Structures are given as C-alpha cells and as structure tokens.
C-alpha cells in the first residue's frame, strides 16, 4: 500500500516537472492533467471520495479543455 502511494507521488512529481520543462505547451497541459488525475487517486486513498470525484472531473476534463482552447487562441510553442 505505502509502496503504491510512494510510486504515485513520485509519478505525480515527475509529471509536474515535465509540465514545467516542456516547450510545447500542449504537452505541458497534458502533463498537468496527469498531475491532477494522480492527485485524484491520492484523494481516494486519503478517504475523500467527494474530493476525488471533483478533482477527476475538473482536472481531467475542464481544466484541460480551457487550456486547449486558450492555446488555440494564442500560441502553441513557448519561445
């Protein structure tokens, strides 16, 4: 159990670093969505199913959608 949680936390931090490093903003947004999704799983492990539901719906669907719309309106690559 603790090993699974540690692995998830590690993966989440790697995703956050990737979201910080990627030059392509679309890839960075997908990495940020991964962070949100793993955070939702961690909320479930912390016995908070309500919060996990909200985080999964917001992080995977809505936040990603509004970021994609925004970079479609602006510029995809970070110079």
């Amino acid at each position, binding site marked *: 159990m603790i090993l699974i949680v540690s692995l998830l936390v590690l993966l989440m931090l790697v995703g956050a670093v990737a979201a910080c490093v990627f030059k392509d903003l679309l890839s960075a947004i997908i990495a940020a969505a991964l962070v949100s999704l793993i955070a939702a799983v961690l909320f479930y492990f912390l016995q*908070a199913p*309500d919060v996990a*539901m*909200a985080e999964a719906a917001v992080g995977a*669907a*809505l936040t990603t*959608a*509004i970021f994609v*719309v925004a970079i479609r*309106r602006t510029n995809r690559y970070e110079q």
Partner: protein
Amino acid sequence: MRKIISVLLLSIVAVGIYLSVSHIPFGAPKTKVGGHYVEQGMEETGAANMVTSVVVIYRGFDTLGEVTVLFIAAVGLAAVLGIAGQQGFPREPASFVLRNACVVIFPLILLCGTYIFAHGHLTPGGGFQGGVVIASAFVLSYLGGRERRISKRLFGSVESLAGLVFVTTGLIGLAVGGYFLSRILPNGRPYSLLSAGIIPIIYIAIGFKVGSELAGIIDNLIEETK
C-alpha cells in the same frame, strides 16, 4: 541569474515549510469540531454524507460566498473577453464518428451529472461535482461540432433561478427558524432519497448553478473570435 535567485528563495521556503510541517503528525485527530460533525451530524441533519452536511448546513453561508465568487469570475471573464453577442465561430467539421457519438453520449453524461447531485446527501457526490460533470458534457458537445448553440439567455436564467432558490431557502429559514439556512423541513427517514430536510433542494440549486456557470465560461472562451 533569475533561476539561481528563484532556487535560493524556494529553498528558503522549503526549509520554512519543513520546520513547520514536521510538527504536524500525519493521521492523528487534530480538531474537535470534526469529531462533533461526524458523531452528531447524522441525527442533526439526516444526511448520510457528512461532507454534504458540512458544505450545505454547517457551513452553508460560506458556500453561498463561494458560489458568489464563482459567479463573479464568470462575469469577469465575459467582461474581459468583451463578447459582443451571438456570433457563430468558424470551425473545422468534426468527423462522422465523433459527431454521432456525441449525440448519443451527451444525454447520458447529463443524466450521470443529475444523479450525482440529486444523491449528494446519500453517496459521494453533490452539487459541485455534478455541476462539473454537466459542464464537461457541454465541452464534449462543442468538441463534436454541433451547429446549434445553447442560448446565453437560457444559461443566464438557469443560473439566476438557481441562485434565487438558494437565497430564498436561506431567507425562509431566517424568517421561520431564526437564522440563515435553518433546517425548516423534517429530516425524514434516513438513507432515502427524500430525506435530510433542505439539503437536496440546496444541492440541486448549486448543481444547476455550477453547471450553467462553468458551461457558460467554456462557451465564452470558445466563442470569442477576433
């Protein structure tokens, strides 16, 4: 240079965090109020889900403030983008599979969202989660390239009506019970759908409000052309 200074500042912040957080034990009870809600909440509110009873009853006024913040953010977004009115947006036509799958899946997602916020007092879920699910259904329908748009006026009326239901329920509670959002309805039989007094009314109102507001935000962001 900028990176070095940032890393230095962040390491100072990290040391500060370590010094303060290392005194917070993980997994130990910390507040008494949480224990009270967990032990007495079922008798006091009749809701099986304690998070719901905290959001709607014990901290109901706080939730009204949060919903107001959401409303102000939506209004601010519309003002910043400066939307003139209904104008179509140029789009690439979606593929056949995506278009038809959206037609089938869209009502099912709406049904799922409605289930989530109608059963908020019994199972995990509630107005906020159900509203987000409903808004994501509208995202899907925009991805599917549907030509027909939902009118802004409808979104606005649903949102205002839901807010009005919330405030009116609170004010009736103030008139009858003596404080805002007092429990004016009987608790009913526990674990049944029509139980827990005013919680289902408030949470359905919140569900409609959050759903229409977030869908309106998506709509404004997508619509904005030139």
